[in-house]
């Protein structure tokens, strides 16, 4: 029965539902991913998408399985025959339009660029992955990816202590710290304590240490004059540092507000931008320059009643603000002849993120190559950027010789000088005034374009999670080039 299936799916997926919720899971189960090339890296990526419940996948792979493939691939034990991506690009590029996301593994440069162009024009996210010896590489290509639920680690609280809204002010007023009995005094939430002392401290330029001392003096004293054990006051003192941060909109969110899409709302505008515009309207018209109140407070020493009452003050304000935003959403949508379907929730307003990746064409074109990033990263000659340049160079080698360097033992030595020519021509073409050490040229010949399983597996986990981020629109994808160096167990992300 349907109920049984839902319950057992809840059980099976319990550990991941706690991360992206039922709505994230639904996105995953409605997605259709295309994997190109079921090499070890490809199948590992796929495994890590199938396990959490990806809705559907299609594998495009024109290669025949070899003995070498069965040696590093957990999922191969028989031949797989299929159409090649090159043939599809030749005959039926629209084949790719049906997918939520296309993942290209171990693609030759020419195929990669052709596919990149098709997918860019069709607005389909493209994730390029490769394992090359002990190096892993990922490139995300998506024009614009918007995220409402970014789930930041360690976000600051939204307590509004510097500009308490009316309901909060009234509530703070209702407390009389000096007139309270001991039990109430020791169980007053630290937010109230800090707010009360702020009222005594009229200056806007307070020294935090002096302010903490002032609060400390408020701790009840015993008959002998020694301070009582009031944990709530200790909490107040500890939290002064962050509680006094001025309420303001982060530059990241500000940038999003100033985005083009925020200005011109049409019937084609995606929900994200309508919501964001509505929040912007709120900020300018109703919020006095502030975002809608988030509505959550951290746990703190307090008796239940005081805490719940305070929590409800924030929650109700958040709901009020959210309904004002929702009205803006409604009227924006009405103005372009649409109906509002989703409710707005305040808690994510401060954490909106937009990821825009440059196209492969931009990365590869001489006119638009990101020279600065490459040159400055090459200041550390043994960092990950040199590995990127080597990957580009072996691609050149492949274009010239129709094979990768050093595949067979006897080729290793003689390919070094050939590969070096490719490196030099690459650097020259892009006018990159950097030095690539000979050691890396030797090493990449040594790799012989091998795909060792453990490196493929590391990439498989990394890529699958980025794919899940794109599909669920939760958490934030990388932008836009990721390199993994298994020799040093280090990684780097570049925006190329």
């Amino acid at each position, binding site marked *: 029965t349907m109920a049984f299936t839902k319950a057992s799916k809840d059980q099976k997926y319990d550990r*991941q539902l706690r991360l992206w919720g039922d709505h994230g899971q639904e996105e995953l189960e409605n997605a259709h991913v295309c994997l190109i090339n079921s090499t070890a890296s490809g199948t590992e990526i796929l495994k*890590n998408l199938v396990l959490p419940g990806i809705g559907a996948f299609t594998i495009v792979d024109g290669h025949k399985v070899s*003995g070498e493939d069965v040696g590093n691939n957990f999922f191969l*034990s028989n031949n797989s025959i299929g159409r090649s991506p090159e043939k599809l690009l030749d005959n039926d590029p629209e084949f790719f339009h049906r997918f939520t996301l296309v993942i290209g593994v171990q693609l030759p440069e020419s195929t990669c660029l052709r596919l990149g162009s098709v997918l860019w024009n069709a607005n389909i996210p493209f994730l390029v992955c490769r394992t090359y010896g002990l190096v892993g590489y990922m490139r995300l290509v998506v024009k614009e990816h918007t995220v409402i639920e970014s789930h930041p680690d360690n976000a600051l609280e939204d307590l509004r202590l510097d500009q308490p809204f009316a309901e909060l002010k009234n509530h703070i007023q209702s407390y009389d710290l000096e007139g309270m009995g001991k039990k109430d005094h020791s169980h007053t939430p630290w937010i109230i304590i800090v707010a009360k002392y702020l009222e005594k401290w009229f200056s806007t330029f307070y020294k935090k240490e002096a302010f903490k001392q002032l609060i400390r003096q408020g701790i009840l004293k015993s008959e002998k004059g020694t301070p009582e054990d009031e944990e709530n006051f200790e909490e107040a003192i500890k939290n002064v540092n962050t509680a006094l941060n001025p309420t303001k909109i982060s530059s990241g969110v500000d940038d999003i507000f100033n985005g083009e899409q925020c200005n011109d709302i049409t019937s084609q505008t995606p929900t994200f931008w309508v919501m964001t515009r509505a929040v912007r309207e709120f900020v300018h018209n109703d919020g006095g320059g502030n975002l809608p109140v988030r509505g959550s407070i951290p746990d703190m020493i307090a008796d239940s009643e005081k805490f719940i009452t305070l929590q409800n003050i924030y929650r109700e304000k958040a709901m009020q603000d959210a309904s004002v935003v929702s009205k803006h959403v409604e009227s924006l949508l009405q103005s372009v002849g649409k109906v509002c379907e989703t409710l707005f929730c305040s808690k994510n307003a401060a954490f909106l993120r937009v990821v825009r990746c440059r196209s492969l064409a931009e990365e590869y074109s001489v006119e638009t190559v990101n020279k600065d990033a490459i040159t400055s990263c090459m200041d550390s000659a043994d960092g990950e950027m040199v590995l990127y340049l080597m990957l580009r160079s072996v691609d050149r080698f492949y274009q010239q010789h129709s094979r990768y360097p050093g595949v067979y033992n006897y080729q290793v030595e003689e390919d070094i000088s050939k590969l070096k020519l490719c490196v030099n021509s690459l650097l020259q073409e892009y006018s990159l005034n950097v030095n690539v050490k000979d050691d890396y040229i*030797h090493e990449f010949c040594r790799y012989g374009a091998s795909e060792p399983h453990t490196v493929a597996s590391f990439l498989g986990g990394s890529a699958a999670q980025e794919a899940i981020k794109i599909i669920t629109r939760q958490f934030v994808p990388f932008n836009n080039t990721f390199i993994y160096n298994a020799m040093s*167990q280090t990684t780097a992300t570049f925006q190329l």
Partner: protein
Amino acid sequence: MLSHPINWLPAESKACMNLLLFSLFREKKRRRVVELTEKMVVDGGSRDGGEWDGRWNHINTFLERPGPFTHPDFEPSTESLQFLLDTCKILVIGAGGLGCELLKDLALSGFRHIHVVDMDTIDVSNLNRQFLFRLKDVGRPKADIAADFINGRIPGCNVVPHFKKIQDFDESFYRQFHIIVCGLDSIIARRWMNGMLLSLLVYEDGVLDPSSIIPLIDGGTEGFKGNARVIFPGMTACIDCTLELYPPQINFPMCTIASMPRLPEHCVEYVRMLLWPKEKPFGDGVGLDADDPEHIQWVYQKSQERAAEFSITGVTYRLTQGVVKRIIPAVASTNAVIAAACATEVFKIASSAYIPLNNYMVFNDVDGLYTYTFEAERKENCSSCSQVPQDLHFSPSAKLQEVVDYLTENASLQMKSPAITATLEGKNKTLYLQTVASIEQRTRPNLSKSLKELGLLDGQELAVADVTTPQTLLFKLSFTS
């Protein structure tokens, strides 16, 4: 443990720590590098035992070819593969999220003699990531099913399962392995393994015998975060050297749970800790079984009632289960990444192809992908690996309870239920032991006695045993005035 000579430079040079190498072929004749100039297709050849052409190509690249970044003592050889296939013995601890990935990674990297230890059985909630298991396997031992799957899928691989706790084995078991890799979900278990490998170390005239070192690769994950580390016991930072990296689990204060709940979690803890023992809903002596849906359902309903009493919202079945079982969210991807990093290190060490990770990598892919790789430092007075006797400073009038509290609360020790014995009047006397009910009852009065009352003297040695270590730790009692 097979004796194999190790190349290592004087310990003064920190950089030399990086150059620790297990030189595995000293005894054998070495082939000359000139062999590699022969025109030879890279292929696995038809070696012993039903191999097929090209099977180990992806690995041989790293074993047979010289390179600029290899370990200084690395010598390319066609024999290295044979060592991995025929001789090298690896122990995998845990057959769960990390364990399944590790077994696959090792099997596809040429390791054939692998043992795996796991005391757990398979649960439905494992199936979103522990891919060696299927629905039909639920209830069966993880180690057994994992071994069956790998052995069936990777011809020639021989994974030996052990449906046991790590504490069920002694030194003679652990000594047989070249490398041990852990995919555990418990800090206590990690510390125990750490202690076990430290206990295997042999010192001759104060000098560590390198052949007694078994490298420990340790991986851990939690949601989208993870870490991988390489430990050479006796040489690099051990688990206890960096105990502060694992902050102690925060439990809610009892007064909050008993009379001042504020969060839905407080309500659940109230039911679990206070209401269940009082109401005994499923009978006398029937403890709360976190895996029993009926028990969880009862806790859930009672938690809702408790929450309603205090106008607390947010108690759901999922939250209830999470609190009772102390659930940590988990996904396939993080486990894949961390296990892969660990397996790469196993390969590096076994083949001496590259310098191993030195020595700790942290991973987080909440926002993009972030890693941080650093060298965790040995603690000079580490209670486990420093061989520096640990002092306990107490006044003679201090109660034994204070000593117990110190052992459990001190950030560097973090013991769970220490058992303390001392030699008094020539006899070994148990001062306090918690884990056996009858002895606990008998020794409990000692907790409120002072150290002087118990007959302890200044400079006296106290032997402390705990689940966090297989070996008894010795402390020296130093009286303060």
